[in-house]
């Protein structure tokens, strides 16, 4: 396990198969695809940033890397991907065995090039445009206003800020007009194209409008003044913005008692996108949407205004009876396309008890690499702290970067099916593009409008190597090479190129089994499977995730397990595979697969986070971690099982979205009695404090900030814990349970699951 982590710490990559099944057939039988979870801009403290441009292969454009074969004498390097011989340019003349450029150091398989900031003038500061829902109750409005004004304080002074509010109408605030507060008001029910917007807002009043094509900010003749009407440096518009926020009122249009408020989220977002497209195309800009309820107006409406119509559920989606869904999704696909084209990001902060339409918005958020936060209220810490984190600088900053382009090079027998993760295909076809598409595919390059240091992509590869006749040959060339190029605008504004080059051995034929097993990263595999199953659930009609997962698991077990045929009791798994069934068991029970306890919005939310998180965090989402605290021992990991519950223990459950501190009944009684306040019971006080500290540590690092639940055994909030535990003890159990807690469920427990697995695997 540890070696995989080391690899991750060097390159930001986790692969299920670190030894690659060598042929197409073999890869197929391995069930878990050849894939990689890659965190493109994961920070590495020791990684140098080279102040020069990379050397690229003449034919395949891959970048010089430690795996290149260098002929120092001839000053030639051979590209490991296409075997093209390239001459070093003159400034590499001094290269020698002793004098290597950093990119050839073996430990710098991941390295960054920093573009010379020759054209500093073209540097455009980060742009934030706030899109604020006003169809919310006064109380929420107060919360939201205070959160926003806090956020404004955190904004870098030079960043450009704009404000759009919406409700029944969309109001674009002209912050740069000094004499009077001024807003442009657009009808919520009508989508406004960018051209119309340009016209309506008088952008080209004094000049002829460029005939056709993309109208791109200052380059196309848009004067700086007209841009400055809507986007102002934070330092300049602080007053205007604050006074607008201060005066911001609940949407004044009356809402009949039997109706939902008229909320035109989609139109507002579309206008925001068009405004950015008009003003600052191509430079990093984020639309930050704060939405407090379902969209009921405009092309992206998710439900009608009448309260008699419920908001779509998973059931409606399955039956295809959600009448607004497809139209809305289609609209947001268009919006996503526009944003990707412009290089802008859509972030969503959804705070409502009801759904707001994340399921529909998902496409736009995910393709642009936007952030998403779902909370119950604008007053909730999940929202407030997450928003702060966005702008926070320091250790826990998100490292928001923008305008990324991600490219892949790999050896010729490997093709790329696509990426599951926050990015958008650039439709760059090439020889290494597979016909099979998974996620964003059909390309070898992707746009990542927004990315941060945690953003992780799941790359799905396909091995097309034919059967090799001579299986015994283990030539030196049994290496696959992968090169990941990420070109992005760093937080600081400069453009950077990060290059990660990997080499993985492939094996085939008899005897390759042990190699495959040794290279199997079960955590990464679980995460890849989780992303795959989520993806398939969303895209494949009639897809049965449980069946698919079970089949996959059985298949793997029967292929990699040790057993005698038809003897379940003889079944055993290598340690490399041993927890994989458990991951699958929890994945089957997770929110990613068991959607019916969640709303489509929640599911979309969970999946979006899953699709952007690294392996470690994803694993927590699949199988929460449980730590037990007691007087008997120090904090220790506990089995995620109802049996872990004990009256004299405190449990800390981290299920990623929720962190639960669970006080056993005795602990709870003590606490209620106030023992921890007594000097003689300092130990108890410390015991109480320990999980809180750990929880804080988790919360601090995580985005979105998880919800912290502190509960007692048998309390109502305890459900947050119980739902995640293996139901080894249910009301069906006859024997009394040691921890005294049972879970009211008909779900099978892990033991039963394993029994069945063994039986099926050995058949």
């Amino acid at each position, binding site marked *: 396990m540890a070696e995989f982590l080391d690899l991750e710490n060097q390159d930001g990559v986790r692969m299920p198969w670190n030894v690659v099944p060598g042929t197409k057939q073999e890869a197929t039988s391995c069930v878990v695809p050849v894939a990689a979870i890659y965190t493109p801009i994961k920070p590495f403290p020791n990684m140098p940033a080279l102040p020069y441009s990379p050397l690229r292969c003449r034919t395949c454009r891959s970048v010089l890397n430690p795996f290149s074969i260098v002929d120092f004498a001839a000053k030639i390097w051979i590209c490991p991907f296409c075997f093209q011989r390239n001459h070093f340019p003159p400034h590499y003349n001094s290269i020698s065995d002793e004098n290597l450029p950093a990119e050839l150091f073996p430990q710098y398989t991941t390295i960054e090039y920093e573009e010379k900031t020759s054209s500093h003038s073209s540097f455009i500061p980060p742009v934030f445009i706030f899109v604020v829902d006003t169809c919310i109750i006064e109380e929420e409005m107060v919360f939201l206003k205070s959160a926003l004004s806090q956020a404004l304080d955190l904004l870098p002074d030079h960043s450009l800020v704009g404000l759009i509010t919406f409700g029944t109408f969309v109001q674009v605030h002209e912050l740069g007009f000094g004499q009077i507060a*001024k807003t442009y*008001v657009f009808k919520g029910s009508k989508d406004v194209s960018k051209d*119309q917007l340009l016209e309506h807002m008088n952008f080209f009043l004094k000049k002829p409008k460029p005939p056709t094509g993309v109208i791109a900010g200052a380059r196309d003749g848009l004067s700086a003044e007209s841009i400055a009407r809507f986007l102002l440096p934070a330092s300049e518009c602080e007053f205007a913005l604050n006074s607008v926020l201060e*005066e911001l009122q609940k949407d004044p249009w009356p809402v009949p008692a039997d109706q939902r408020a008229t909320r035109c989220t989609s139109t507002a977002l579309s206008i925001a996108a068009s405004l950015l497209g008009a003003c600052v195309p191509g430079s990093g800009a984020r639309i930050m949407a704060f939405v407090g309820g379902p969209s009921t107006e405009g092309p992206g409406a998710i439900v009608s205004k009448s309260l008699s119509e419920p908001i779509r559920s998973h059931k409606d989606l399955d039956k295809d009876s959600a009448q607004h869904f497809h139209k809305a999704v289609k609209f947001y696909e268009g919006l996503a396309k526009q944003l990707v084209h412009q290089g802008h990001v859509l972030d969503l902060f959804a705070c409502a008890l009801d759904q707001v339409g994340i399921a529909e918005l998902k496409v736009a958020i995910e393709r642009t690499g936007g952030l998403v936060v779902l909370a119950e209220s604008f007053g909730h810490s999940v929202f407030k702290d997450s928003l702060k984190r966005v702008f926070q600088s320091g250790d826990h900053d998100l490292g928001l970067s923008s305008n990324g382009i991600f490219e892949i090079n790999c050896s010729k027998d490997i093709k790329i099916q696509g990426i599951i993760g926050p990015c958008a295909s650039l439709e760059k076809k090439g020889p290494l593009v597979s016909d099979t598409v998974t996620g964003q595919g059909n390309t070898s390059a992707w746009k990542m409008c927004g990315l941060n240091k945690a953003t992780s992509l799941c790359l799905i590869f396909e091995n097309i190597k034919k059967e090799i006749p001579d299986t015994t040959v283990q030539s030196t060339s049994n290496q696959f090479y992968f090169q990941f190029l990420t070109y992005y605008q760093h937080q600081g504004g400069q453009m950077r190129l990060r290059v990660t080059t990997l080499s993985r051995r492939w094996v085939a034929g008899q005897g390759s089994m042990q190699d495959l097993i040794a290279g199997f990263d079960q955590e990464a595999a679980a995460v890849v499977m989780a992303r795959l199953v989520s993806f398939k659930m969303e895209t494949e009609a009639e897809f049965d995730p449980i069946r698919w997962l079970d089949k996959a698991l059985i298949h793997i077990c029967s292929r990699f397990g040790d057993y005698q045929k038809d003897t379940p009791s003889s079944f055993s798994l290598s340690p490399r595979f041993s927890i994989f069934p458990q991951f699958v068991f929890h994945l089957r029970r997770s929110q990613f697969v068991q959607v019916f306890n969640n709303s489509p919005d929640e599911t979309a939310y969970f999946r979006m986070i899953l699709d952007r998180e690294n392996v470690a965090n994803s694993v927590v989402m699949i199988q929460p971690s449980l730590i037990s605290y007691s007087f008997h021992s120090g904090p220790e990991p506990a089995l995620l099982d109802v049996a872990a519950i004990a009256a004299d223990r405190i449990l800390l459950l981290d299920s990623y979205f929720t962190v639960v501190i669970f006080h056993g009944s005795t602990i709870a009684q003590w606490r209620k009695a106030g023992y921890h306040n007594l000097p003689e019971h300092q130990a108890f006080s410390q015991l109480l404090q320990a999980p809180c500290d750990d929880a804080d540590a988790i919360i601090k690092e995580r985005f979105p900030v998880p919800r912290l639940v502190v509960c007692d055994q048998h309390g109502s909030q305890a459900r947050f814990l119980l739902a995640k535990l293996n139901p080894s003890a249910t009301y069906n159990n006859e024997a009394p349970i040691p921890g005294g807690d049972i879970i009211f469920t008909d779900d099978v427990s892990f033991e039963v699951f394993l029994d069945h697995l063994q039986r099926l695997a050995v058949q």
Partner: protein
Amino acid sequence: MAANVPPPGAPRPNSNNFVPPPNYNPSAQRPPDYLAENLQNLNLNRPPSMPNSAPRPSPYGQPPPFPSSAPPPGVPVASPPFPRPGPPPGVLARPSMPLSGPSQATLPPGGAPLRPTGPPVGQPSPFVSRPPPGSLPSPMSGYVTPGCGPPSSGPFQSSSLLSGQVAQRPLQPGARPMPLSSPMIATGQFVPPSSGPGGLMSNGPPNFTSGAIPGAPRFPPIGNVQQPPLGPPQTAMSAMAPPRAPTMHSHLGGSVVSAPPGPPTQPASPFSAAPSPFSAPPQGMPPPPGSPYGSPSWPLQPGQVAPPPPIPGSAQPPRMFGMPPPPPNQSMTTISPAIGQTGAPVAGSTKIDPNQIPRPLPGSSVVLHETRQGNQANPPPPATSDYIVKDTGNCSPRYMRCTINQIPCTADLLTTSGMPLALLVQPFALPHPSEEPIQVVDFGESGPVRCSRCKGYINPFMKFIDQGRRFICNFCGFTDETPRDYHCNLGPDGRRRDADERPELCRGTVEFVATKEFMVRDPMPAVYFFLIDVSMNAIQTGATAAACSAINQVIADLPEGPLTIVGIATFDSTIHFYNLKRALQQPLMLIVPDVQDVYTPLQTDVLVPLSECRQHLELLLESIPTMFQNSKTAESAFGAAIKAAFLAMKTTGGKLLVFQSVLPSTGIGALSAREAEGRANISSGEKEAHKLLQPVDKTLKTMAIEFAEYQVCVDIFITTQSYVDIASISVVPRTTGGQVYYYYPFSALSDPAKLYNDLRWNVTRPQGFEAVMRVRCSQGIQVQEYCGNFCRRVPTDVDLPGIDCDKTIMVTLKHDDKLQDGSECAFQCALLYTTVYGQRRIRVTTLSLPCTSMLTNLFRSADLDTQFTCFLKQAANEIPSSPLLRVREQVTNLCINSLLSYRKFCATVSSSGQLILPEALKLLPLYTLALIKSTGLRTDGRIDDRSFWINYVSSLSTPLAVPLVYPRMVAIHDLDSKEDNDSIIPPVIPLSSEHVNEKGIYLLENGEDCFIYIGNSVDPDILRKLFGVNSTDEVSTQIVLQQYDNSLSKKLNDVVNEIRRQRCNYLRLKLCKKGDPSGMSFFSYMVEDQSQGGPSYVEFLVHIHRQIQVKMSS
């Protein structure tokens, strides 16, 4: 002057408190140099101090306190206390007694109907015209009539002398009654003079002139001019022929009467087809036999005049209106011998003496008018005169008057008469200050008593029977049960005993408090939404600033109800609303950029109670002009803007006041400069010229109908320098009961004052909202059509989102059955409306008129002002849909037809050589001529001017109709010299250039515009006194009248303010100078002159006469 004004009764309580709004008379109140400091009258007009306190008009616009009572006669300060222009202050101004007889050269307006109180000696003429029944002896006076009042200096005067105006005799040198009078068109009731000397007479005038006043200055006492007729006709004859023409000219001014000169000069005249009657004579030749007007007709005059030389009035018997019809021949009131030639064929040329043909003369004194007397309808005084009404059963003629004061029993009779039958309804007309206010009657829960069948409202003409238990409806004849709690016994006279205590049973006009039954919803508060053009042009011309400043000042004048609501928006190519909610630190501008598909950006806060947003509003209005000063947006989305504003007002309705400066060029209802297209494409443009006077499409009309449906009334103030397509734009106000104000070309210097005053009057005048009006008639008559500014969605009712005291609606009537001779026919106008204070009321005006089957009665009771108003409105309606020539022809034919009918069936004189005019209609030809030459019917006018004219006419009230086409002209250079005249307004001068002296300065006004013409050789001293300049070159055409510290200037200001008050209009002042376009436009108002636009007055009479002859003989 104050003498007759204040009615004897105690002063009405409110008359003092009352401070009506627009103070038209700023200058009077100010220290002289105040003006100098403030070039813009604007400031002046603010009522800086209202001496009389109470700033608010009563809801019904009680007229202001009587000005006259305050100021001493001689003091020029008439106006100060009355900021409001409205009421007829004229009353004061007019001398009750004709003092300076001679000086009033103009002809009197054919016997103003005065009540036949004993004819005081001092007021001979008016009374004379209608001697009391018994006073046969007075026939003489009848004679006088024509020369109205006092001083008629003309031939008629002589007659008046007879009647006892001895005093005047001296003035008139040789005035000999009968003979002299013959030459002219006798407006009097007697058969004229045609007698013996007839022919001579006709020639007389010219001669006379030539002789008597050879080269005399035309002006001086105009009276002089008219005196001539005396002249020895014969000499004239001899003198005649060629020489005569010149003399004429000398008198009348060259262009005026071109007729006289020989035929050669004539050809171009419209009458050219047939040799002009005039043309022939000069030659001394008998007219060619073939000519329709052939000699036969003319010669008749001398001796053939049928009626015996009625000398001392073969006594026109009493012509009281109420009297039984006089014998036919007597009813023939007018004969114009004028055209006649001398008896001898020899004397070819016959002339009409231009000085003696009928002309309007304002009534000189206030008349007390009782609407019914002796249970008979009393014919109302002329609409243009000054009168005080006592409502004794019929409504005041201000509210409703009929074209004929007796109703023809059959449709045939009406057709024969050639007269229109229509009502002119002006439900909110301003009463005279001395009139009693309309009484409000509250019937409580049950609502007003109404006929259960036709829903007619209880009125004095409902007949109670059966001990009062039942009543018969005077409209449908149905017998209703009297509601139990309304029951009252009848007295011996068959009237209810309580009739005199109940206003609804003894007054022609009452107001009922509306019950729930009359409400679709609760009455809405008064809502005022201001919409201001801020496009580049508007900003740069100062129109925006003017509008903002006007609004800012007017805010204080808005009705102060707790619920009065205001809103404001501006627009260029986008629409800008403002959130005025108080909580906001500053107003928030909300821009609606989509002008194709508009919406209102806020539901509530764009319309805010005035009390909550006053400060914001003021601040905003101050900053709007600067806010947009750098705007480069030339486009204007007018249509979209009003639509958006409408959407904001949809829930409440109310008044939308739009300030527009350019052609709406974008958004919904965008218009194109079709005027230019029309010009560029002249060939087709000519044929289709009238199309430009129609709205370009239905977009705005459709919108307007929707506005009306939601009770939004739109007023548009057009402050422009260019074509804005008023024809299209005006559809909106016309359909919503609004009004168009037109400031072209807009001057930032002189127009803001008018803009402010117009706006102020607009919001402060008596008015109502969400109104519905219906007119009911007695069986036999029904309403044919309504015509005015309203929206009509069901055939019976008109919807008036807004109605105010200036709006008149014409209701044409038709027979659907015969009426009983001797019965009465009643008309009732019910107007359901909401007051500015949010009360729902029904104003019911009832008029009951006798029915007659005698044509002569119809002619006798014809109401000229009303009839002419009808013609005017009908012509205005026609203009956009017919070629101009045809409209003119129609107008002329209408005139000819009624005169023909009279000639044919009522006149005793059978001689075809006389033009005979019914007394009541004697001015019809003059007005018709004026109409033909008016802006609307001229070809040379700008399209927008004509459109505006058409639109202006559509809601024009009767008293203002005549002045519009036949403006009032007075001399102002010699105001000083008439110290003792107690009328503020100097005597009126006929509209002929002959009366315009280059040494003089003249003021001409038509109720809307006011032109000051400065002659070429005016004494610089006068110029300096009036305008503070030394020569005409220094004055620009746009002026702001200032008051300098000299009595002449003061008097001029008084005059102007007096006129403003009379017209309820601030009048656009324009200076005109000879030899520049402004001078041309001034002279275009000289309707009696011959001009491109039409014949001279004399020629026109001839034309009419000829047409009648043709028709008679055919």
